[in-house]
C-alpha cells in the first residue's frame, strides 16, 4: 500500500468525527521503484494532505520530506525526487492502520489493508 493510498483513506466507523489520518503501525516496508512523472506530481500535489503525508513517511522510515511544502517547491528536482519516492515507491507490506479516534486496528497483510467494518461499527 502506497502512501498515496494512505492519504486518501479515513476511518468510517460509526460515531467517528474525523477518521483521518489513520495512524500507521509498521511491520514491513518494501521499496518498489517506478519512473518519476513530474506532471503527475505537480497535478497531485495540491490534493495531498501534506502534514499527514510527511508524518506517514517518517513512520515508514523516510524522514527526508519537509514538514511543510508549497507549490514553489515543485520547481526543485530534488524535492520532486523525494516527493515521488515517498508517495509512490514506499509500500507498507505488513502492519496496520489505526483509527485515530477509536484505536481500532485495520490489519495490513501483503500490502492489502482490511477495512471491513464489524456490524456494530456501521
Amino acid at each position, binding site marked *: 500500500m*502506497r502512501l498515496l493510498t494512505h492519504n486518501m483513506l*479515513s476511518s468510517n466507523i460509526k460515531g467517528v468525527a474525523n477518521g483521518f489520518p489513520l495512524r500507521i503501525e509498521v511491520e514491513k516496508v518494501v521499496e518498489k521503484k517506478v519512473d518519476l512523472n513530474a506532471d503527475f506530481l505537480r497535478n*497531485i500535489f495540491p490534493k495531498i*494532505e501534506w502534514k499527514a503525508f510527511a508524518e506517514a513517511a517518517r513512520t515508514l522510515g523516510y524522514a527526508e520530506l519537509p514538514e511543510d511544502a508549497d507549490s514553489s517547491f515543485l520547481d526543485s528536482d530534488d524535492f520532486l525526487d523525494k516527493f515521488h519516492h515517498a508517495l509512490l515507491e514506499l509500500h507498507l507490506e505488513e502492519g496496520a492502520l489505526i483509527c485515530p479516534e477509536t484505536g481500532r486496528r485495520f490489519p495490513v497483510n501483503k500490502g492489502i489493508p*482490511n477495512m471491513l467494518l464489524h456490524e456494530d461499527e456501521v
Partner: protein
Amino acid sequence: MKLKQLEGLLGELQQFSNPKELEQYPTGPHIASRMLFTAENSFEDVSNKVVADFGCGCGTLGAAAALLGAEHVMGIDIDSQSLELASLNAEDLELDINFIQSDIKNLGWRGQIVDTVVMNPPFGTRKKGADMDFLCVALKVASQAVYSLHKTSTRDHIKRVALRDLNASSAEVLCELRFDVPQLYKFHKKKEVDIAVDLWRFVPKGNQGKGTEHHLKSGTS
C-alpha cells in the same frame, strides 16, 4: 498500446472458478479492454490519472487501467479470495495495483484525489439495489468520470436516478455490449445466458471536464 494487444494481455488473467453469493461475474477481456480503451482514447480518463476499480473481483479492469498508463490504480473488493487472485494477476503482468479489502459502502475517503472510477458492479439481481449503491459511492468519490456496466433493461431508471439523486451532471450510454453469463450459480436455469449491458460514462457535478461528444456505434461483443 493497441486494443488487440490489451485484450490479449487481459486474456492471460485468471478468473473466478468458484463465485459466491456476491454476484461475481468476471469482466472478460473483451469488455474490459473496450471499456478502458474508450475511456483513454475518447476521453483521456486513464493515463497519468488516479483510477479506482470498485468491486474489482479478480482485478481485470484495474489491470487494464494500469496497462493503459494510469499512474496509480486501486482495486477495492469485499472478498479475500478475489483479492488474492487479483494480487496474483497483477503480479503476473508486473503491475503495481493497490488493493483494499472493504465494503464499498463503508469505505472512508478523504479529498478529491481519485480521478476516474471504473466498475462492473453487481447487477442487483441477487441483492436488490446493489448496482445503485455502487453508483452512488462512485459518483461521490470520482472527480472526473465514472465508467460502469449496467443491464440495458435498467437504462431509463439508471439515467433518471443518476441525474436526479446521485450528483451526476451527465449520464451517457457509450455503447451496448453483450455479456456472457455462464451458468456459475445454481439459480441459473440455462447453460449460458446473453445479457445486454450498457457501458455508461457518468460525470459528477462540480467538474468542468470533457463532455460526451464521442459515441461508439452499438454492437454485439
